[in-house]
């Protein structure tokens, strides 16, 4: 009997790489488009402009935080709809607790801010753990479980904020939110650190590897001896924590905690992950893809304002990119197969 061969056409592997990089290609195309427009219409550059670069990256930071956690959830074949209001809850708590720490505990501005940020992040353990527990142990579908948590977190955020925005009077929050040492916004520095940590977790650890396996086949992961319940708990916990960080950063950026801070960002976070190449069926996606996806959305939103187009076009443009992205994903699966992400 002839030796069976495992062969995958080498030419295809180049196509696969291109398909994987599609979010970065989108990004380049968009930048080229806005650059040409800016030069033709205003005789100035769009991208060779420090202010624009700072604005776009700062603009991308908070939705990216949500999208980083969402990437793990989506790779595991789940979805976290509660992220937006978990972020709002964290934002309100971070503002409140910093105020309390300064006024009642007599802490200085910096420790008061750290206290606030920590409290905002710690509070997200609760929705993260409850989401994970519902999905892993009580077998509630992720869409339903996190939709329930969406409501619970929303109500809690408004209750914690007394129904409104909580102003915070702390100069260190604005340092985090708005200062730009050497032209690099502090928010962007924090985002870069978060990206590196999340990339490491997803691509280099067993936790990340098992997340991919879980998304591809629960049965395979479970029969390989992976504790899929504990893994699911950890994934939703991580997702809640990134929302917590996003909320604290939001409080810094606007010097206020807002319950509705993350409401419009939830769908942006899912969009960033999908544009970045993840499949909503689970099993695929990367942190670099998600970063590109978040930048694509930010460039569209900022660019359209920059070239003075009515803001409603943003929705149409982002929506179109999502659809194109999913079509490319399907074509890739159908015609050229995939490649294991690393």
């Amino acid at each position, binding site marked *: 009997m002839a030796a069976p061969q*495992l062969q995958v056409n*080498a030419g295809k592997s180049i196509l696969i790489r291109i398909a994987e990089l599609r979010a970065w290609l989108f990004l380049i195309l968009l930048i080229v488009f806005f650059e040409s427009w800016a030069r033709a219409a205003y005789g100035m550059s769009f991208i060779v402009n420090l202010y624009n670069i700072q604005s776009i990256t700062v603009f991308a930071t908070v939705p990216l935080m949500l999208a980083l956690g969402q990437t793990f959830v989506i790779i595991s074949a789940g979805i976290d709809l509660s992220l937006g209001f978990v972020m709002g809850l964290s934002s309100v708590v971070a503002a409140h607790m910093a105020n309390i720490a300064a006024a009642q505990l007599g802490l200085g501005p910096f420790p008061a801010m750290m206290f606030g940020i920590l409290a905002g992040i710690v509070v997200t353990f609760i929705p993260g753990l409850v989401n994970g527990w519902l999905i892993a142990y009580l077998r509630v579908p992720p869409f339903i479980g996190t939709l329930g948590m969406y409501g619970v977190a929303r109500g809690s955020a408004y209750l914690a904020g007394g129904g409104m925005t909580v102003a915070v009077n702390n100069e260190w929050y604005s340092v985090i939110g708005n200062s730009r040492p050497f032209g690099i916004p502090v928010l962007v520095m924090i985002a870069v650190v978060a990206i590196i940590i999340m990339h490491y977790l997803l691509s*280099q650890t067993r936790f990340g590897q098992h997340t991919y*396996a879980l998304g591809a086949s629960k049965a395979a992961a479970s029969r390989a001896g992976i504790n899929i319940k504990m893994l699911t708990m950890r994934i939703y916990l991580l997702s809640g924590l990134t929302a917590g960080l996003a909320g604290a950063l939001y409080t810094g950026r606007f010097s206020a905690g807002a319950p509705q801070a993350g409401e419009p960002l939830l769908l942006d976070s899912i969009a960033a992950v999908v544009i970045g190449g993840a499949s909503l069926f689970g*099993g695929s996606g990367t942190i670099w893809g998600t970063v590109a996806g978040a930048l694509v959305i930010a460039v569209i939103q900022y660019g359209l304002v920059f070239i003075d187009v009515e803001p409603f076009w943003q929705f149409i443009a982002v929506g179109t990119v999502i659809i194109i992205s999913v079509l490319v994903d399907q074509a890739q699966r159908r015609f050229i197969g*995939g490649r294991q992400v690393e």
Partner: protein
Amino acid sequence: MSERQPILSVRNVSKHFGGVQALDKVSFDVFPGEVVALAGDNGAGKSTVIKAISGVYPYEDGDIFLDGKRIAFATPQEARDNGIETIYQDLALADNLSIGANIFLGREPMKRLFGILPAIDRKRMAEAAKETMKRLDFHVDRLDAPVAAFSGGQRQAVAIGRAMYWNARLVIMDEPTAALGVPEQRKVIALIQSLKAEGKGIIFISHNLRDIFEVADRIVVFRRGENAGERTPGTVSADEIVRLMVGK
């Protein structure tokens, strides 16, 4: 053959589910380098007995010995840790992962990045994958391809490779050829021969009598949870096996 110690020895094992006697004093042995086919109609007890062996559920009466030691595993993981690997019909592979990642799933080798950060050692996984697939006479040119890119027979080879890499003593294969086309079925038969050549014990469950006759050293026939007979392929006709299965 009687001089050698069997890898697996099933002695008078019984099990019921409510009022249904699923297994009634079933016995058989598996020796090293031997393929034992379990034959029987649906509900004859083939699946129940392999699940009792592999720790999916407990058995009530009787004994199961692995290398002479009595076993009663509480979980499939425990059975696997003791050298019993079960290859399921649906293969239980993560389609999005490479061969190496599948072989090592749940037991990934680690290295240190920059001397400190623990990280999965993908190079070691790829090398082990290449080595293992070579033992099965599969030559892999792209170790980073996800197993979804491969055919049914090739995926079967990955599942078998996993059992082989972890030095399973006993490999249980539940309908390994059922979902495959004819050429692929041939490949799987060849894979079973290579497992045999490595001295593993193999339990082979199939509805396909042709496959059973081609690969089995002994055929153990079950009927309604009982031993209905044991035959050697060279000395028995397919008709007789069917008669034993249906009890006429």
